[in-house]
């Protein structure tokens, strides 16, 4: 990771035509610009070339088991929180080829790895930058880095947009990951409502970001711009009501592995895996042979997997976690506790997607609170062997 924004860069201001010019510059540079757009009643991330494709005037109402788009009173382009997509879809695609080879009697010819797309991500939230930093720890900062992820990640340009309208499901301050962008960005935009719809305060986070900004028609930020941006930041922070207190969390969970709350939540949990699919840090994957009709061609695919699947822990002889109780416990304790043992960081960034996209509205913050409130309760008689 590079250090946070060098202090010798001053914020500049970009108007809406300037935002289009930014996209044009990135496209000219051969980048695929991925940004938010509305599809099927949700804000999703997809390739865009025009600011007209952005979700102008849309907000997202979210709650446990609930996500609805709603028209805003204004015309903000980034006036939503987060949708079901995360940038994981592009850096760690749902299905990707690990390797492919032509096989003959004499040997194996492994094809060179495919070229990766050069992405520019527009509209990255602070919690999402934090999630990417978590995936970096898991997939790159190891003795066995994931070559495909590292290549995609290394090429990508990150244009963050500070959150102005967090959802009720958001709890990034508890996880220390937002709502304001602090590091990991090349450019960080703050959308300021005005008579023309909006303008953007642009903070520069890297030399690459500075080089892009230098090619745009910007003006230096005036005190009024900075004050307006600061109001957006403080407004977002003040709008977040949900919390997941992190103090002692790991120990609380690991000392309550036989807590009756796991049974309560398992009675609701459908083990549908939605929470793991929308999670921006979940990395579990199947590495499987891709079927081929040719006897000479072999290829392996990496596909998103979920610890909620009964076969996730399958061994000859059966699954190691055959109850939903144990699979929910695995998911939550991994996210909030054992992730630290494995990767030196939390696996949760507080984006709230798992709450909104759970079909039965299970809320990770509520589950933790319930265990904390009855710390030490156990479903087993004292002294029984689990």
């Amino acid at each position, binding site marked *: *990771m*590079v250090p946070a924004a060098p202090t010798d860069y001053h914020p500049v201001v970009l108007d809406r035509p300037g935002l289009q010019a930014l996209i044009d510059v990135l496209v000219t540079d051969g980048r695929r610009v991925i940004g938010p757009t509305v599809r099927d009643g949700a804000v999703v991330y997809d390739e865009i070339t025009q600011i007209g494709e952005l979700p102008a005037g849309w907000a997202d109402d979210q709650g446990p088991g609930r996500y609805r788009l709603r028209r805003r009173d204004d015309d903000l382009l980034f006036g939503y929180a987060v949708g079901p997509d995360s940038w994981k879809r592009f850096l760690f695609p749902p299905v990707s080829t*690990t*390797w492919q080879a032509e*096989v003959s009697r004499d*040997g*194996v010819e*492994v094809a060179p*790895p495919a070229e990766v797309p050069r992405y520019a991500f527009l509209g990255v939230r602070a919690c999402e*930058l934090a999630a*990417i930093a978590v995936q*970096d720890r*898991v*997939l*790159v900062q*190891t*003795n*066995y*880095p994931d*070559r495909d992820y*590292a290549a995609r*990640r*290394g090429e990508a340009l990150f244009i963050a947009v500070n959150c102005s309208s967090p959802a009720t499901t958001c709890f990034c301050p508890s996880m220390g990951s937002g709502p304001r962008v602090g*590091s990991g*960005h*090349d450019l960080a935009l703050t959308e300021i409502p005005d008579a023309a719809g909006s303008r953007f305060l642009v903070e520069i*986070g*890297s030399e*690459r970001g500075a080089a892009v900004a230098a090619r745009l028609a910007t003006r230096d930020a005036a005190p009024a711009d900075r004050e307006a941006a600061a109001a957006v930041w403080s407004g977002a922070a003040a709008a977040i009501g949900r919390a997941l207190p992190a103090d002692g969390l790991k120990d609380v969970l*690991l000392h309550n*592995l036989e807590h009756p709350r796991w049974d309560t939540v398992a009675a609701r949990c459908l083990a549908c895996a939605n929470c793991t699919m929308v999670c921006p840090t979940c*990395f*579990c*994957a*199947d*590495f*499987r*042979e891709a079927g*081929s009709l040719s*006897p000479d061609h*072999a290829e*392996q695919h990496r596909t998103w*997997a979920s*610890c909620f699947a009964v076969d*996730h*822990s399958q*061994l*000859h002889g059966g699954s*190691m*976690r055959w*109850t939903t109780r*144990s699979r929910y*416990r*695995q998911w939550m*304790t*991994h996210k909030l506790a*054992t992730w630290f*043992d*494995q990767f030196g960081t939390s696996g949760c960034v507080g984006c709230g997607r798992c709450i909104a996209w759970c079909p039965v509205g299970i809320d990770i913050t509520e589950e933790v609170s319930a265990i904390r409130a009855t710390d030490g309760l156990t479903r087993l008689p004292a002294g029984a062997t*689990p």
Partner: protein
Amino acid sequence: MVLALPADVRAADAMVPVPYRVVGRAQETGDTVTLSLEPVEQPIATPAPGQFNMLYAFGVGEVPISISGIDAGHRVRHTVRAVGAVSQALCAAEAGAMVGVRGPFGTDWGVDSAAGGDVIVIAGGIGLAPLRPVVHELLHNRRRFRRVTVLVGARSPEEIVFRGEVASWQASARITVRTTVDYATAAWKGEVGVVPTLIERVTIDPEVTTVMICGPEVMLRFTAAEVLGRGVAAERVRVSMERNVQCGVGRCGHCQLGPVLICLNGPVFPWSRVGPLVARREL
């Protein structure tokens, strides 16, 4: 944002199998085969006893298999029990066939750290496979160790792997070998009963004894309990664990056991580390 990449990220991907050829095939039991493999071109790094490789049957898939032999000339042996599509394909591989190998991965038994003391090797069924290179090392450097005991259990006499070799270890009298089966036949000369019952007949000097165990998880638990009951410290009791391993390099998430990843932090663990984890149901 710029990502600081490890220097070797552009190097050979740990996910790409290295071509090996089957140069020998021995039927161990009704469903278990030992394959001898030699590299077609470049070999993998030399494994240490206890480590595992990912074995790939072309067009079928890949499974983690412990290394049952580390021979001269980059030859490795794998003892495979046919229980699924991939292991069946591997067991069916004839001499001359090509398989893919990735590895070696994971922790080893740490045989060196047992030097100067007693070693007890305890195997259940195909659990003898990752311990076979340990016995070889103990025999090869016999003077570096005091008493060496090998306890072998299987469901029936026909299901003991490396039968001829176990008999030759027994005959050599350089180490103590005891065998037991759950179900005996009329010709069986060894013990009858589960593996832990053999332990009470072994002289244990707990201060200087290192124990290495591999077998089904229930056997690990009862065997470890037995040797702990004889005063051996949990740090000196090592076990080899099995979980669903799909990548071998800590990226697929399938092999988690609480805080540990079996592929990276294991498969060989001191009991002090995994004992509390395996005691927890469905962890």
